[in-house]
């Protein structure tokens, strides 16, 4: 029994051209203390399935699932009030664009204290002290000064650290990171991934990492789920996936990596897929 259990999740969007199925019968399970990577290219539904679990999709989305539970609680049938006691507290999320995720009009300190006061129930004074602690924990240099800084005064890497500090402020049991390093330089990406893994190991929270980057998967995940066009192609522990990928799409993705190039041309995904998967 996992911490988060999603069975047969389907998400449809009503568009002017009719209904569009973004997620088509996906199962997601993550256990306590586990790092699950969801890999896929754009349009694979990897973000949408997690946004559905968080209840963050707009009204035009129709969500159906046989089961969607967090720690035994039914996420599908709970009231908004009950949902808010879980989302943002026990499950938190960080996103791809750290600078856009923060409000430009308030200092980072104000924003993290807001989380601590409303979601962790701390007093103003306690929130201030805890914010400083969290900034130190996520490795922000000159934390006291940075609490008084606005997002535009900080680099992308530092803003992502602020986002991570906000996400772990409530000691969540599950952190969902949606492409957390895609907008960052590689040296900063390494720092952020190291930080996420360190925090995961210290706190024992579960981590779902949504990414398109096989390198990121290789360096973080315990288990991997590969998605393509809203469907799950393969699920395996990380070593098996890289050592002996069973699905043609996974094999195609791995051999499309330039570092695996053997000839002077790269194999492309189309040359691997059987017609029924390509549609």
């Amino acid at each position, binding site marked *: 029994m996992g911490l988060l259990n999603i069975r047969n999740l389907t998400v449809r969007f009503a568009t002017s051209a009719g209904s569009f199925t973004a997620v088509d019968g996906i199962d997601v399970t993550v256990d306590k*203390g586990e790092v699950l990577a969801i890999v896929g*290219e*754009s349009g694979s539904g990897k973000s949408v399935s997690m946004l559905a679990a968080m209840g963050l999709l707009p009204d035009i989305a129709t969500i159906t699932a046989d089961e969607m539970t967090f720690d035994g609680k039914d996420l599908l049938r709970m009231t908004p009030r009950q949902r808010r006691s879980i989302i943002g507290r026990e499950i938190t999320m960080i996103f791809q664009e750290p600078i856009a995720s923060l409000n430009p009009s308030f200092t980072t300190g104000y924003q993290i204290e807001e989380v601590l006061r409303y979601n962790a129930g701390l007093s103003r004074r306690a929130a201030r002290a805890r914010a400083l602690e969290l900034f130190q924990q996520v490795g922000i240099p000159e934390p006291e000064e940075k609490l008084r800084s606005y997002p535009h005064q900080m680099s992308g890497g530092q803003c992502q650290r602020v986002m991570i500090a906000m996400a772990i402020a409530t000691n969540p049991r599950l952190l969902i990171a949606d492409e957390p390093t895609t907008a960052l*330089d*590689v*040296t*900063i*990406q*390494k720092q952020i*991934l190291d930080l996420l893994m360190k925090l995961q*190991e210290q706190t*024992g929270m579960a981590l779902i990492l949504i990414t*398109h*980057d*096989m*390198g*990121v*998967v*290789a*360096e973080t995940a*315990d288990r991997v789920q590969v998605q393509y066009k809203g469907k799950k192609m393969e699920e395996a*522990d*990380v*070593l098996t996936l*890289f*050592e002996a990928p069973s699905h043609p799409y996974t094999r*195609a*993705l*791995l051999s*499309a*990596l*330039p*570092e*695996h*190039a053997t000839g*002077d*041309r*790269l*194999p*492309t*995904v*189309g040359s691997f897929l059987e017609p029924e998967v390509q549609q």
Partner: protein
Amino acid sequence: MSVVEGRNLIRDYYVPGSLTRAAKTVRAVKGISFSVERGKTLAIVGESGSGKSTLARIIALIDQASGGELLIEGKPVDIGKQRPTREMRSKVQMVFQNPYGSLNPRQKIGDVLMEPLLLNTDTPAAERRRRAEEMLVKVGLPAEVFNRYPHMFSGGQRQRIAIARALMLNPTLLVLDEPVSALDLSVQAQVLNLLADLQEEFNLAYVFISHDLSVVRYIADDVLVMNKGEAVEQGSRDEVFADPKHPYTRELFAATPITDVEAIRARVARRKALRAATA
């Protein structure tokens, strides 16, 4: 003779002052020298703020260098003193990172491709059309797309269109500024293959700007690593990758995630041990 040669190129940006701040000059490119032969690829690697795109714009005759000398096919070019001739303009073309931003949404694909001929040559209309249709086929698009608009194409297809546009004038040098970093892995492989095919067919020289070392390793003949406006390391691809000399290059290599099975095995074992210790 080199297709392009840079001798000690410098670029300064003037940052105007305000009441509280003195004006200052920022040196974005601090004296860089290089040369590229026909049919070869020079990759310029660096993180954001390294000055790699500034250098690309100087090479592509978009921006003026503040110092140093730029030679195209042995002839010195200084766009500050003299507008580049149509002939010079035809020799150097550029492809940008974001194919969603680099194509005019109100311009049909055919017009996108014919415009360089209209501006720089005296080719008659019928001939312009014939050459545009030919080029579409060369980059792997059917000639029927001639009358369609950019929004009807995917990112990879748009990048093909941008490459086709750059090739319309039979350039000898293509400056590619992160041409595949906005693309999915499978599409990235297709575009890299296309670039390799076109380089062979037209004996093109490429200046390939990238932050992705696995792509650089795959495509480059020579590598120039930039950090804070300086060329910290320069050499053939094999030299630089086998034995990086500069600490920054080593840091960059160490930060790049790799999908090596042995490395994954070691990481998984370390995590298991850690979990056993805390359990």
